[in-house]
């Protein structure tokens, strides 16, 4: 249904005064791919999206779709659809007026406009809402209209700038599924910007993790989730416990050991590590085992400090003998003050090259 593109390639540098917000940020998107730019606020992801849309000029760089250079075209000539965080519906137009807006500008025949708008409202499950005004709709409905308004133009590329961030948690999950359904159904090519790792993982074919205008890691979601390249990406992907130290032995079984203060932690290295090299061991709170056999490796004792009841399980902060805090997520009942044995299953521990950087926020 949408006019397809073979591939989109860009390379962008953006400076605001002396500050470089995007440093030669390059990306290739294949047709029908769903690519997510993931990063904390201020990492340059939204700026990149706005530059691709032509809404902000780049300081340097280029943008190609197949053999066509696009970066000199104004926004209105690029033919990219865009969905914004705050929906950006025209408040003085009805739902119909909003969705028909772009087609009217193209001077399409009235019958075609009516037909396409109707079909698009069906697709986003809002038939019958034509005469409503945006102020009469809920946030989720407004975002559906915004998506319909962009898609009715059959854009070659759909840009989504944190489209779910203004919605409440339940609606966000619903709309996420909706976006996934529409993407699959129409075979769209999408670039999606978010700071939410769950959205990135669940929607994308390809995730680009960004920090300060630089790509920290790019790859399929499973790879980003299971094998983060560095502490920043690991932290973003839910590894909360970091033990900086140095490599003591690089085992032949694909595992290695890191000494972090008095702790010796075995895990799987992200790449081959040499003995003596600086490295950081990392584990997710939910991967920490409470209890378990005494002979297992990576066994420590932890004193329970704080327990938060989260329904299905508990989140607890423990202090290890080394004085390090450890976040644990477990269905086991823990009470503050008690000392419990815990274990890090070695295959759940990743060893990252380099010392832990200051924790990103």
């Amino acid at each position, binding site marked *: 249904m949408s006019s397809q593109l073979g591939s989109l390639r860009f390379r962008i540098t953006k400076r605001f005064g002396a500050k470089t917000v995007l440093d030669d940020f390059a990306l290739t998107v294949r047709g029908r791919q769903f690519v997510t730019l993931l990063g904390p606020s201020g990492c340059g992801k939204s700026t990149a999206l*706005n530059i691709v*849309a*032509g*809404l902000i000029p780049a300081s340097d760089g280029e943008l190609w779709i197949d053999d066509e250079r696009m970066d000199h075209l*104004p*926004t*209105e000539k*690029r*033919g*990219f*659809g*865009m969905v*914004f965080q*705050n929906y*950006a*519906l*025209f*408040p*003085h*137009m*009805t739902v*119909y*007026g909003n969705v*028909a*807006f*772009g087609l*009217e*500008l*193209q001077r399409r025949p*009235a019958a075609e406009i009516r037909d396409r708008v109707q079909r698009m409202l069906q697709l986003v499950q809002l038939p019958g809402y*034509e*005469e409503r005004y945006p102020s009469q709709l809920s946030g989720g409905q407004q975002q559906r209209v*915004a998506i319909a*308004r*962009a898609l009715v*133009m059959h854009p070659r590329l759909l*840009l989504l700038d944190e489209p779910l961030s203004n919605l409440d948690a339940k609606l966000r999950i619903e709309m996420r599924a909706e976006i996934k359904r529409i993407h699959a159904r129409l075979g769209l090519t999408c670039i999606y910007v978010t700071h939410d790792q769950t959205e990135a993982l669940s929607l994308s074919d390809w995730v680009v993790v960004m920090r300060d205008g630089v790509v920290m890691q790019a790859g399929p979601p499973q790879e980003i989730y299971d094998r983060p390249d560095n502490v920043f990406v690991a932290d973003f992907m839910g590894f909360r416990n970091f033990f900086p130290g140095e490599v003591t032995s690089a085992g032949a079984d694909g595992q290695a050991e890191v000494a972090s203060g008095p702790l010796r932690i075995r895990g799987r290295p992200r790449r081959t590590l040499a003995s003596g090299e600086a490295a950081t061991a990392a584990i997710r709170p939910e991967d920490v085992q409470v209890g378990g056999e005494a002979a297992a490796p990576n066994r420590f004792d932890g004193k329970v400090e704080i327990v938060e009841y989260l329904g299905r399980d508990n989140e607890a902060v423990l202090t290890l003998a080394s004085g390090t805090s450890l976040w644990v997520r477990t269905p086991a009942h823990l009470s503050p003050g008690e000392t419990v044995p815990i274990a890090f299953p070695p295959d759940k521990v990743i060893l990252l090259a380099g010392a832990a950087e200051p924790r990103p926020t």
Partner: protein
Amino acid sequence: MRGLRRGEPRELDLMAVACLAPSVLYVVLMFVYPFLRGIYLSLRPGKEPVGLSLANYVAFFSDEWQYGTIWITFSLAVPTTIVVVATALFLAYGMRRGIRMERTITTILVLPVSLGVILLSIGIQGFYGTRGWFNQLLVGSGLISEPLRLTNNHTGVMLSLFMQQFPFCFLMLLGYISGIDPTLEKSARTLGAGSWTVFRRVMFPLIAPGLAIAFALVFVMSFAVFPSAILLGQPAGSTRTIAIAAYHQAFEHYDMSYASAIAVIMGLCQLAGLVLIVLVRQRMVLAPTMGVGKR
């Protein structure tokens, strides 16, 4: 405080009434009473009036020297209003996303407000007068041979009105326009709208309410033109505005009743202007909204 449930009749809250009283009293004392008194006064003409009479109004509308002031005032106020609002709209729209040195430019634009009408008028007289710098520059550079007459006529009054009204209008519209969500413009552009279409289809309908208020305020203030009509116009001739006519009756002929009648007529003219603005606004705003989906 007690919560108000929907559908339940609101109880008359003594506390609320007590809190409202000072402002109600103020409005009555400072506005309602003088206003009604003015109307009453205008209906009791002569030195020893008996009963109510429309004689003042009849006198006004049978004397061309008097009723002509209505036309004179409109001919000053309407063009001024249009030029002021159009210029302010143009500039404010251009500055909606901020420009370099915005603060400096805004300060310069707003400065005339702080100076007061008299100083402004004397300044205009000195700059644009027949022997002012402006004319000397034009004559000196050989562009014109005779100095232009820019003061002591219609043009002079309008220049002065423009400088008084523009800053207000500009600031108001700038606030109004920069309050419009910038992503609306962005989304219109991604849908294929160029700058002009963005203005016409998206921004203008959203600015229209603010524009109507700007029109109304500038018109009402311009219609009451008095000091600049005297200082920069011909108060006994081509710029004898309705405010001057009322002033003459009140403080030269000491006929407060007739003066009140003229003031009431002036008020009605301003009201007519406002009604017209509201009607035009309704047409303007409804047109693009109703257009979509009905074609």
